[in-house]
């Protein structure tokens, strides 16, 4: 049976390794499709998808919208800044109003962790989590693993370090779950103030020295420092953060192997990663973006196939 075990994609935590395998195999086919002269298939022509973004996004929103359009779905977009949310409407009311216009699937980004789970329990539509607070960002983790699989052949047995602001990162949490499901070894690295307490209970290695972390890993996933989520000072200055946790050419050259560099974007050039590294062949940042469309097509296609006609 090639079917997902879930009806919504709320987080990687709900998936099993067969689901991930199926998503990757389906994404392989869609990657071929989006490299054709005509990049569109008609599968979802009778499906309507609402993109609800209660928080800013460029890449993820564009990527989802493109994936939906490549599958021929009808798309409606919504962003909180221009909506009745400001007038005091509740989340369920907002979504139910949208669903009463016959929408089959909802892609949602929300600043509150668990907003998608809550929604999935109260509305009758397939929900895809496009990031909920500092909780999960499942499609990002899937495309990260997919990009590792593409570059290194497989994910199993690889050493992956996630560097930076782990505390405020939904990408980190989803990545940890996804990588562990596929049998990779995961390490987190960053200043102690940006590492969540008890993160080691998830079975990840914890390191505060970037050089040691890079020596251990095959892949380094560099995260952005999320200044907008910081309610206090977590490190003395950006300059000091860069000195301790920024990846630059000299540091990479000092390693005895060539590691793969990833970044979920948006990049703060010169902070967590220097321009020459970000633009080098070692970095697969733009591949990640391209794979993002294929992965999202796969997720939408597989979830849509569970919506009964």
């Amino acid at each position: 049976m090639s079917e997902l075990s879930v009806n919504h994609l709320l987080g990687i935590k709900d998936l099993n390794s067969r689901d991930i395998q199926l998503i990757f195999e389906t994404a392989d086919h869609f990657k071929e499709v989006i490299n054709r002269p005509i990049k569109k298939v008609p599968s979802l022509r009778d499906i309507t998808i609402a993109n609800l973004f209660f928080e800013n996004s460029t890449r993820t929103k564009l990527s989802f919208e493109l994936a939906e359009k490549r599958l021929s779905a009808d798309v409606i977009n919504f962003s909180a800044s221009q909506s009745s949310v400001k007038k005091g409407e509740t989340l369920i009311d907002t979504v139910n109003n949208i669903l009463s216009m016959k929408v089959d699937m909802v892609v949602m980004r929300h600043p509150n962790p668990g907003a998608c789970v809550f929604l999935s329990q109260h509305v009758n539509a397939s929900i895809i989590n496009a990031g909920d607070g500092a909780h999960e960002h499942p499609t990002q983790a899937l495309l990260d693993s997919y990009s590792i699989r593409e570059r290194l052949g497989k994910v199993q047995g690889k050493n992956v370090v996630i560097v930076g602001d782990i505390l405020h990162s939904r990408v980190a949490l989803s990545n940890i779950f996804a990588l562990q499901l596929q049998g990779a070894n995961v390490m987190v690295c960053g200043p102690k103030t940006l590492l969540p307490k008890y993160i080691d209970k998830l079975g990840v290695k914890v390191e505060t020295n970037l050089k040691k972390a890079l020596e251990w890993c095959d892949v380094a996933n560099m995260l952005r420092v999320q200044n907008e989520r910081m309610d206090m000072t977590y490190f003395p200055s950006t300059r000091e953060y860069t000195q301790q946790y920024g990846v630059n050419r000299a540091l990479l050259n000092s390693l005895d192997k060539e590691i793969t560099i990833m970044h979920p974007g948006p990049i703060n050039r010169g902070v967590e990663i220097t321009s020459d590294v970000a633009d080098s062949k070692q970095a697969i940042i733009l591949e990640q973006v391209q794979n993002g469309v294929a992965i999202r097509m796969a997720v939408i296609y597989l979830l849509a196939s569970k919506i009964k006609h």
Partner: protein
Amino acid sequence: MSQKLLLNAKEINIILHRLACQLIEKHNDFSNTVLIGIQPRGKFLANRLAQILKSEYHIKHIQLGLLDITFFRDDFRRGEKPLEANTTEINFLVEDKNIVFIDDVLYTGRSIRAALTAIQSFGRPNEIELLTLIDRRFSRHLPIQPDYRGRQVDAINKEKVKVNWLEHGGEDAVYLVNN
């Protein structure tokens, strides 16, 4: 379940050679013709025909592609089983080419309808023909007929035509299966 042998290996071989000759009659040296096997089952027939054309009729240049129609089917979300995709391998543009679609069994015609849409992603062909080993006539849902057919079969709807290939199923044979 009972099954009746419709074609044995020898008969299939004769039919494949006849189909190859009919293709040559129309397409000469295949300089502007491409063969497209419809995934998943048309692949074997397409490979076999290309091999016969090359080795026995000395056609040097044959372009062969495989087309997956999963994302173009009209029964998405309508069946019990989820649709499983296969690979598409078309490493050329079909703009202004003469295409021969190749599939093992022509039944309702819906696969071919999907293939006609799917191939548009690779350009605007000059002409499209259809070659099929088994033509189950009287069971079409759409106005689609083959240009080259191996054998016509009259089967009632609950019967199934099963095509085995040496490379997939262990023998060359066509059976009529009654469930």
